């Protein structure tokens, strides 16, 4: 009798049926969430209409009316173009910050594990100090306390090529004197050639075992190619050196104190976090690896470079990605010192009659784009480093 009627055929009534209840709860929850969001949306649009403020994105095409220093932006260009300039500034600070912070962070992280007591203590001091101070304070300190107190222009000596004052750091730069397209094409071809040469040298090394010197070969090819391109296309640029005028320098490439303070502060702060991540990831590599490399007679540097760091790197990629995202978003603190990055531009345009909800939404979308890009790159790196089967 038990085999005649399978128990699975008997269904409980729907109010006791777990499957139905699960779906029902989810449906109700979803309903409440959507109702809440629609209520917020309705509230916002109603209030904007009541005040007579537009709810579209047309403000992006309006002329900006304000100027942005250190760029070619003209005040008659649109607000959208201003946002793009801000995005470029944010990108520059973020990318440079990520590169420098990683280099410094790895150095400090390795230093914390050094056998030298002084080095170890100095690194620990650096990490503990900078990790525990809010990054905004560090930014303001560097700007107000150091960079704008550099000697002003009149008292400054010109160190030949570089000019440093409280108006900024001016580096020698290249001035375009003719069309660059042909030059860039040749440079691109040179890059490809250099990559091929490196690959050839590596193949040769794998086959015969002779030292490859591939970096030297690659650089040599690149340098030769670029010089050839420069000469052949008729010297399409000249160097421009900073010259001191009555108010500021003309010529050269200027890095403002605001940019400098933001970059230095972000680098120092994020490097202190990256140092801890690196330290943790090195400690996670099994002790046996270090013992084995010592037994093989590898020096300390070789052990780090060839055995420990490659394994540690795999572990450190997800937290590093986190720090990179933090750095990108922390660049918005540049508004405190007047650096024209994305948040600053958005705030200026809001205060010059752009509607606040739409402008803030555009701002958030830009940051989202940056963050997703960084996450994408680090996810690709992560996936390639993963141990198969995990």
């Amino acid at each position: 009798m038990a085999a005649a009627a399978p128990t699975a055929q008997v269904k409980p009534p729907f109010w006791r049926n777990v499957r139905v209840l699960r779906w029902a709860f989810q449906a109700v929850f979803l309903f409440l969430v959507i109702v809440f969001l629609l209520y917020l949306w309705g509230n916002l649009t109603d209030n904007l209409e009541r005040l007579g403020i537009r709810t579209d994105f047309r403000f992006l095409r309006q002329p900006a009316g304000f100027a942005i220093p250190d760029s070619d932006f003209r005040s008659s260009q649109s607000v959208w173009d201003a946002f793009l300039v801000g995005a470029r500034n944010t990108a520059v600070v973020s990318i440079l910050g990520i590169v420098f912070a990683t280099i410094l962070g790895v150095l400090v992280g390795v230093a914390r594990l050094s056998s030298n007591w002084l080095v170890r203590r100095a690194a620990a001091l650096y990490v503990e100090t900078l990790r525990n101070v809010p990054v905004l304070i560090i930014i303001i300190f560097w700007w107000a306390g150091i960079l704008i107190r550099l000697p002003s222009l009149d008292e400054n000596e010109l160190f030949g090529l570089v000019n440093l004052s409280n108006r900024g750091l001016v580096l020698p730069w290249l001035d375009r004197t003719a069309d660059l397209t042909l030059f860039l094409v040749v440079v691109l071809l040179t890059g490809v050639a250099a990559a091929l040469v490196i690959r050839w040298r590596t193949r040769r090394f794998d086959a015969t075992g002779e030292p490859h010197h591939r970096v030297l070969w690659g650089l040599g090819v690149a340098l030769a190619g670029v010089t050839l391109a420069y000469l052949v296309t008729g010297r399409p640029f000249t160097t421009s050196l900073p010259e001191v005028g009555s108010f500021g320098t003309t010529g050269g490439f200027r890095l403002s104190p605001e940019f400098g303070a933001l970059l230095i502060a972000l680098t120092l702060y994020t490097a202190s976090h990256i140092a801890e991540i690196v330290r943790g990831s090195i400690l996670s590599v099994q002790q046996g690896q270090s013992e084995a490399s010592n037994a093989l007679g590898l020096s300390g540097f070789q052990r780090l470079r060839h055995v420990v760091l490659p394994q540690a790197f795999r572990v450190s990629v997800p937290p590093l990605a986190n720090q990179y995202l933090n750095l990108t978003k922390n660049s918005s603190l540049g508004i405190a010192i007047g650096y024209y990055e994305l948040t600053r531009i958005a705030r200026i345009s809001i205060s010059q009659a752009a509607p606040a909800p739409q402008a803030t939404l555009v701002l958030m979308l830009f940051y989202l784009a940056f963050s997703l890009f960084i996450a994408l790159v680090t996810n690709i790196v992560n996936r390639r480093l993963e141990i198969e089967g995990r």
Partner: protein
Amino acid sequence: MPKRRLIITGLMLVVVSLLAAGCFHSDDENGNGNGEAAQTDTGGEDSGQEGGGVFQQVQDRGNVICGVNDAVPGFGTATEGGEYEGFDIDYCRAVAAAVLGDANAVEFRALTADQRFTALQSGEVDVLIRNTTFTASRDGAEGARFLHTTYYDGQGMMVTEESGFTELEDLAGSTVCVLSGTTTELNLETVFQARGIDYTPLTFEENEPLQQAFIQGRCDAWTSDISQLAGVRSAWPDAEGGPDSLVIMDEIMSKEPLGPVVRDGDDDWADAVNWAVVVTIQAEELEITSENVQEMAGSDDPEIQRLLGQPVEGEPFDAGLGLDAEFALNVIEQVGNYGEIFDRHIGPGSPLALDRGINALWTDGGLQYAPPYR
């Protein structure tokens, strides 16, 4: 089965969204016609066209929330005791005296130039009296309504005495500091472009870091409304050279009519604030001051009687503004007339030492002209 689950989830999303959206059919007429979610009031009526908007809220609450500046000496600063004082502050108190009968029934909110319009639009402040210039885009796109101008100003440029600059052309190639979120930022760009003067702007959100940058020589000139420059200059620390180390150029770069601001769409409140300001000018025209106002209340002049809300053959005059009949008397007694407010904070006897100039009464050749109170 994953496919079945996917179908059910998809169907559920569609049904639930339709149901939820059906609860909200707004935008056709005023109001959200739904019975599901809780409905909160946004300022009395939804459209705010009828009375009872901010005016009602202020009376219910018992005080006026005024958005002000706390960083411009003479117009709006915070004193050591945490109190606020200044030309604009006194006008906040005048509004409170008119609407509530008590000049001290004010709550001050210090706002930066960037925040001020968002604070006004969102209802965080009832009125914004913060040296704000009347412009078309603020009237339109920012949803603001400007009331009677209290101070006709212009934009100027301040440099150090030792630089020796006297005209704008001297600033070619220089760095100029300016506050962001102001008309001065836009005017600087317009004027310098029109005259073909090359420059680098450096903007800040607050006066504090701007002052630091100017002191350190990070920028060569500071541009702002002349009244603001005068205020900042009057409080310049002696350690940096004191007020005499700075000079405000003779150039006037733009028109800057400063006045109180309220939100669009609330005419009753706008009228109340407007007339609170106008009666101070009218009082000066009739030579009524805070000291003689009680005497003047007994005067036989019908204009004075009407202004001070004294009965003229029976009923005192009621202009239908929703204000007390004696509101002008309260304002003049507790705050003063336009001349008194001006002299107290920014006049020739004050640290700013500004002349009445174009802010004199129309009878003295200036622009202050009160519409008749009748």
